[in-house]
């Protein structure tokens, strides 16, 4: 059943700017950590969460996220188990939550069952980088809509203006602006060409809000993203944090370090 409540993603972008969305891999660093990390991130001040569904062959990801996925899989993480863990998600977490992962595990789980499960546990949206737009429109969109799940598309510096407009037309959550031609965690800092690209996106006045991701790792790169779009997504840098220190305090300090300028 469609919830009467507004989708949390849409609500968030109405209420807030400078959105900080943080990615972490389900079942990492320990199998049972998923909801614990989510809850700690909300307490620490994250505005939105992206929970990675680990896959054996994540072609859009760099070594940091690959390694965390492999560790989670070796510990026994599955989509089945993830949805079990997420049953208690909404008892601890109130900010929007997305699932990010590759299309094969979703396909094997069953698309309809996946959408139902998302709705049931309170997941608001998904990011499936290897799900092509055409397939989405033909096979997936009606199910996503039925269960109130927002699908997120990626754009990169090489995405044509026409295609960006097309993507803007077929989503109603936000657009994931990939900061440079790269996989996750690959390039550091902000290059001159990137600012021109951000400016170009800004001037397109898209109907969907946008978040910049890939290569966002500190306060400065986060702020730059906020100057041009509705906020930023951090993934690999946070996974590195988790690998060193996954305590509530460690997570709090990490988020603070991104949001606030260090003195």
């Amino acid at each position, binding site marked *: 059943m469609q919830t009467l409540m507004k989708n949390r993603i849409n609500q968030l972008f109405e209420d807030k700017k400078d959105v900080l969305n943080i990615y972490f891999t389900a079942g990492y660093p320990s199998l049972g950590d998923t909801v614990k990390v989510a809850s700690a991130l909300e307490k620490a001040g994250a505005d939105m969460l992206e929970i990675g569904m680990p896959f054996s062959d994540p072609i859009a990801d760099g070594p940091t996220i690959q390694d965390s996925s492999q560790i989670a899989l070796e510990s026994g993480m599955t989509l089945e188990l993830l949805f079990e863990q997420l049953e208690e998600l909404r008892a601890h977490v109130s900010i929007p939550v997305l699932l990010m992962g590759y299309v094969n595990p979703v396909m094997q789980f069953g698309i309809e069952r996946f959408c139902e499960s998302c709705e049931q546990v309170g997941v608001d949206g998904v990011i499936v980088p290897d799900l092509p737009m055409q397939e989405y429109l033909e096979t997936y969109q009606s199910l996503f809509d039925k269960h109130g799940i927002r699908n997120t598309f990626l754009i990169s510096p090489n995405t044509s203006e026409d*295609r960006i407009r097309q993507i803007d037309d077929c989503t109603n959550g936000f657009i994931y602006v990939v900061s440079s031609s790269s996989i996750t965690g690959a390039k550091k800092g902000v290059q001159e060409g990137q600012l021109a690209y951000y400016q170009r996106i800004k001037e397109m006045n898209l109907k969907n809000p946008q978040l910049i991701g890939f290569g966002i790792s500190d306060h400065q790169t986060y702020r730059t993203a906020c100057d041009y779009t509705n906020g930023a997504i951090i993934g690999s840098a946070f996974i590195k944090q988790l690998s060193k220190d996954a305590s509530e305090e460690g997570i709090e300090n990490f988020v603070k370090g991104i949001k606030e300028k260090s003195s």
Partner: protein
Amino acid sequence: MQYGVDERGYYGQFGGAYIPEMLFPNVEELRVNYLDIIESDDFKDEFQHLLRNYVGRPTPLYFASRLSEKYKTKIYLKREDLCHTGAHKVNNTIGQILLAQRLGKSKIIAETGAGQHGVATATVCALMGMECVVYMGEIDMARQRPNVERMKILGATVKPAISGSKTLKDATNEAMRHWINNPDDTHYIIGSVVGPHPYPDMVARFQSVISEEIQNQLQEVEGRNAPDHVIACVGGGSNAAGAFYHFLEDKGVNLIAAEAAGLGISSGKSAATTALGKPGVLHGSKTILMQTEDGQVVEPYSISAGLDYPGIGPIHAHLFDDGRAEFFGISDEEAMLAGVELSKLEGIIPAIETSHALAVFGKRTFGSDEVIVVNLSGRGDKDLETYIKWGKY
């Protein structure tokens, strides 16, 4: 065309282009241009010229009389093992590098398992003076050291894939990541009929010279342009796609695919994709895939590194699903015995991949007046160490 690719990039329910948006512009550029380029006179002339004078085509269609006598049927061998670099792989790398040049690309990347496609890519890059990076699983690099050195002699950089299982599928992942990171000046030469559309169709077209020649050569020796059966081994399936290509729509020709069953189909050490897999998505296309219940890709096993792949080209998934082709799972032992048998009967030491196709004669009988073509996809020089280790000859 019932068995060719449709306008959406699918073979039946298989195929498509399941790629991250970062790869879309590159793959789209290929999709929009590949047919115009490869059907242009200028491309055809250069491709034909190189296939004739550089690769050594047409390769012979050889009547294997002693093998025929043993199995009481008429067996022809399509001698792709006589191609420059020792296998059919070079047909595709020549085609793709000519295409890359016409798209204005200056750098080439490739993935390789056993190293045959890597060597064929390094070879054409040397020929054209283009920069070449080949990804190879760290484990495969250790297993196939001579091919690593061959690539280096040819001027290529060989980069180890150190993620995941450190074999072919991970080398493919790394090559795709490299392409995401370098979208403007780089062309990715995929070595088999796998990957996002239009790769499976493009590679099949470049390899289709095999069945085109079979038609002409059979006409000369048998007075007919189609055999009763074509047999080929299938890992990703590029040599099979090339050998089947011009017979796909002719139901009078029975197509037979040999997959690697490793230590046995239910041994847990196998690469028999159609026997063990189910529909799924890997490396950009929907196909039949060896995977867990949860959709994680299972690491395959075969004595032959060239067949050690958890998927299969979408064209073959469709041929299997539709019942158009017969599929056999051939164990390591059966393949090795068939390889030694061909060596002793015909004086040809085949690649172990190819030996899987030859082992079909031990699995199925053929009529005495039937004409069978086996695609002898590669020679066994690279496999000497495996033959020696196995030892039963």
